[in-house]
């Protein structure tokens, strides 16, 4: 069942014009009871997904992976290899789908773009002084434009957590609006090329409370986010099931209120097929099948992919193959 609002669609676009209006709105959202949210997430984690349902879930999860490398040591060779893997995750099995996207730093975008061109695999780039976001706005915007210029069609930006935690919601809002503009400005001269999709990283591990996660989710969506994403993967607490649950509830309620659908991307710490399936169950039972598509749900992960491939092979052949049979890129 999909979320439908009985009330008329609301126009919330005016909220960003004033700090007071934003604050009043965000603090007027219903609270999240921590114990209840964690209990619900744990409960969804006990679903038993077997046989055909498991096979279907694994292929969907592979298509949803944003295959990621975000290291200081990334080189053109490393990211080219990763991009090749994104296209053919399991060279031994042509029926294996390709992943959703490759996610790299802006300087690595051109090398990945060469490999992915025309493949249907998206090219995501982190930007806005990832992961801390602690740089002057002009630099963050330049970072974004450079990534788009170089061929990224998805931008993963970080919000200004310092401003958010200090209660300067308008500042966070304005930065997201400006970054979204930067994602689109590169289109001006090139026809037929869509603007880059904007994923907004909330860094929920630093926001600490579920109330904050819900407010930051709404703030990002109001400012125009195409996706909301949990984490950079660079702080100790990354994606968790309860945080993702709160964000899914937010996108569900946002669509019911405005009619616009926003995607969700948990990132960091999701390493096993079992974990990935728990997330898919949560999507299925919280927001429904409309979100069960790589356009609307992604996993930010790297080691997850090989576990998915191993489980996939196990299901098709009946035996577990050792890790040496899966490529390490």
């Amino acid at each position, binding site marked *: *069942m999909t979320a439908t609002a009985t009330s008329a669609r609301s126009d919330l676009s005016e909220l960003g014009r004033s700090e007071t209006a934003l604050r009043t709105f965000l603090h007027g959202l219903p609270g*999240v009871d921590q*114990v*209840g949210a964690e209990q619900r997430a744990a409960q969804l984690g006990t679903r*038993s997904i077997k046989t055909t349902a*498991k096979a279907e*879930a694994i292929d969907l999860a592979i298509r949803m992976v944003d295959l990621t490398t975000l290291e200081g040591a990334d080189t053109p060779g490393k990211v080219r290899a990763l991009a090749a893997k994104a296209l053919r995750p399991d060279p031994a099995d042509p029926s294996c789908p390709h992943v959703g996207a490759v996610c790299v730093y802006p300087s690595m975008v051109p090398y990945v773009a060469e490999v992915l061109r025309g493949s249907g695999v998206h090219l995501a780039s982190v930007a806005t002084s990832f992961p801390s976001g602690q740089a002057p706005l002009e630099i963050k915007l330049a970072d974004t434009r450079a990534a788009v210029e170089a061929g990224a069609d998805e931008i993963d930006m970080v919000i200004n957590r310092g401003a958010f935690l200090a209660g300067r919601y308008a500042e966070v809002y304005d930065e997201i609006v400006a970054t979204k503009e930067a994602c689109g400005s590169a289109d001006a001269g090139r026809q037929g090329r869509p603007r880059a999709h904007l994923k907004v990283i909330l860094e929920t591990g630093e926001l600490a409370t579920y109330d904050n996660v819900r407010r930051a989710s709404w703030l990002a969506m109001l400012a125009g986010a195409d996706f909301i994403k949990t984490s950079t993967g660079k702080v100790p607490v990354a994606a968790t099931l309860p945080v993702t649950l709160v964000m899914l509830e937010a996108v569900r309620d946002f669509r019911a209120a405005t009619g616009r659908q926003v995607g969700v991307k948990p990132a960091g710490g999701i390493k096993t097929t079992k974990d990935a399936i728990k997330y898919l*169950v949560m999507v299925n*039972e919280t927001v429904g*099948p409309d979100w069960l598509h790589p356009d609307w749900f992604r996993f930010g992960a790297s080691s997850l992919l090989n576990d998915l491939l191993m489980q996939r092979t196990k299901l098709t052949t009946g035996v577990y193959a050792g890790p040496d049979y899966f490529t390490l890129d």
Partner: protein
Amino acid sequence: MFEYAPAPESRSVVDLKPSYGLFIDGKFVDPADGGSFKSINPASEEVLAEIAEGGAQDVDRAVRAARKAYDKVWGPMPGRDRAKYLFRIARIIQERSRELAVLESLDNGKPIKESRDVDLPLVAAHFFYYAGWADKLEYAGFGRRPTSQHSGAYPQPLGVAAQVIPWNFPLLMLAWKIAPALAAGNTVVLKPAETTPLTALLFAEICQQADLPAGVVNIVTGAGETGRALVEHADVDKVAFTGSTDVGRAIARAVAGSRKKLTLELGGKAANIVFDDAPVDQAVEGIVNGIFFNQGHVCCAGSRLLVQESVAEQVLESLKRRMAQLRLGDPLDKNTDIGAINSAAQLSRIRELTEAGAAEGAQQWSPPCELPERGFWFAPTIFTGVTQAHRIAREEIFGPVLSVLTFRTPAEAVEKANNTPYGLSAGIWTEKGSRILWTADRLRAGVVWANTFNKFDPTSPFGGYKESGYGREGGRHGLEAYLNV
């Protein structure tokens, strides 16, 4: 669409015998007059086993066995030794929990995820908890004075306890009854419900496995007549009953004027109060848990939703969306949320009351939900537009049926919540701590949950106000019912 493939728990772990006798004086024996009845699987109507029907003669035999064990073995035994038996039973329950959970779901119809994740962990926890009390009774708050013919510096047990339990949580209610009774030094004769005797009989095997002295626990199966013979038996010192208010009244009359000590845990019609500042998503989970947990076969179920009128539309919309996700079907499937109604009789009672609700003008709603052809099933249902005058707002339905009422102010919420002859439990949903305390102070209910529902713990006392019964089970308070204080 993401369809979950069937994920059935295996039945092979359960070794069902074709027939079961009565468990008296440490052995399974045939009933004196040879009567029997069948226990069926309510999800398929398949006969599970033939069960002995205990008569007055069998009850007498069981009470005499319990008396002998009390006088000779269990009464004089030091508390620390009784504790060893209870700890051993608790551990065996944990070891055999999968078997017990599958059997409970087969006989009762409840989903395996509940028998596995709720019933069995709580059953073991109750035995562990009361095992700990067995050698510490003088610190339970009831004084150290010697008060019975067994003089000693400890609070003294009562003697032989007659215990009659319901079918909604067969093994858990057994644990609530037997664990404190044994810890305090009593011996017991327990009658399980006639539709769900199997886990009690498996528990009898566990008593044998634990080398519990003969006669300390006796299980006499049968229906109402067997229960009557048990509570009316002249040599019983204590009667404990959980079940309907009507039967509770009859028992209270039967033991009136006798030396028997009585505790009753009866029906309920709990209010689950949702204020306008509630955490909506979690409140909806709490509403669902409150009324659809165990198919609503819960005496403390949150069967009356009192929602503040200003948020009623939003809460109901979320509730309906959530109800559409409930999976009804095979109780042994690990993904089943709603299992079978326990019996044909209970199903017709639920139907009668829901028909009355519709006839009295309330609006009935259920999500699209396919019911299996065989067995006893009822789709999760809510009634809106319910007023205090409707039967469905006053009578206990004991099924997956929620009555929704609205209120305007906190005072009105409390007034409506208390406007019932029952008083077993209540729920409060609000983000404001002071409002939780204000409301809880004014609710006449034995258990009040705040921002949660149906939370049970062996350390916490449970029991009713008004016609929901008297006495408390669980916690230190639960010992009082089994001690001469």
